[in-house]
């Protein structure tokens, strides 16, 4: 139990998926201009990543490794993720329309979010057990949401300030992200 807690903390803060591992940066810069969209994206990622983490783990252990076809990992993982996103979208549309309306356009975008694919690959590379893979998927997704929401909060203020012309938009966004990443480095001593 203690190990799982340590794993969760290290996935959320120390190895933060956005700021320390550089995965999922396109949606990080794309959807962080407003707090609302950042929240939507964060929630969608938590939802999909936990499911993708579980399913790809099962696929890898019981299909790919059992049949000795690990070279199909990249192809099969991306297909699993794409199909999963599609299913989640259809399922939510039918049964939880409220959540579907909230997540809206962010769901299809997740297919090309490298954080999802990245975490699935990390789970396999680190040879996690099923429970560990589940915890790490959830914790990485929470870390993603946390960084995204923090960043959106800062960025809403940055938009209001006067930025020199060449630095505007993405450029200042990246510098801001760098400063937040700098803050996150202090968590390194935690575990």
């Amino acid at each position: 139990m203690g190990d799982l807690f340590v794993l969760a903390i290290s996935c959320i803060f120390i190895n933060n998926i956005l700021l320390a591992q550089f995965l999922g940066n396109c949606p990080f810069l794309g959807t962080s201009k407003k707090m609302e969209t950042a929240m939507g994206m964060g929630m969608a990622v938590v939802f999909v990543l936990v499911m993708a983490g579980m399913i790809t783990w099962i696929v890898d252990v019981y299909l790919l490794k059992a049949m000795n076809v690990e070279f199909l990992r990249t192809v099969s993982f991306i297909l699993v993720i794409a199909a999963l996103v599609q299913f989640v979208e259809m399922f939510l549309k039918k049964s939880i329309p409220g959540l579907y309306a909230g997540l809206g356009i962010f769901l299809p975008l997740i297919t090309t979010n490298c954080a999802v694919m990245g975490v699935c690959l990390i789970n396999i590379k680190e040879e996690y057990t099923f429970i560990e893979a589940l915890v790490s998927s959830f914790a990485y997704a929470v870390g993603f949401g946390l960084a995204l929401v923090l960043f959106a909060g800062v960025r809403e203020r940055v938009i209001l300030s006067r930025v020199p012309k060449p630095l505007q938009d993405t450029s200042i966004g990246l510098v801001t992200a760098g400063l937040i990443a700098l803050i996150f480095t202090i968590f390194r001593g935690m575990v």
Partner: protein
Amino acid sequence: MAQSLVKEFTKGLWAEIPPFRLVLGLCPTLAVTKTVENGIGMGVATTFVLVFSNILISMLRNIIPSKVRIACYIVIIATFVTIVEFMMQAYTYELFLKLGIFIPLIVVNCIVLGRAEAFAGKNTVIPSAADGLGMGIGFTMSLAALGAVRELIGAGTLTVWGGSPIFEIGHGYIPFQFMVEAPGAFIGLGLMLCLMNLIGQK
């Protein structure tokens, strides 16, 4: 014909150079550019995937039904990524270890899918190959440039293919560790983007 080909090729080198003009594919850009060598390696791998997936997709563009095109594109791209992964494992094992998880992640690099959707799906084979090659070389140049800046400031050296650096600032230089770590990647890219905007303004 030849003129338009040159245009497709050169637009990836400056006018639409990724990831500066097209803000796509940021993850590998930020993650692997600790050194010039890694940047070039990643760029070449991405170029390979870009060119071949563009060629194959443009050949199949009339066969692929438009409703499932994204899924088809992803499978084609994933196939080429797997090929690259094995080639790198066989011939450049050290680089393969350094780039690690980011090689399979070329699949979800938005540049590759973006070019497939925006260009290869609508054009014939030769322009698509030129487009892929141009974008790939542009991406490689960007990665190499960012890698050079980060390595030079962060470690005080420049290393290309091999153990010993080809350039060293000198013994008095104290490396600015910050640049090779995570925050330096973001700030370095942000400032380079700013520089590009500044040059582009004139």
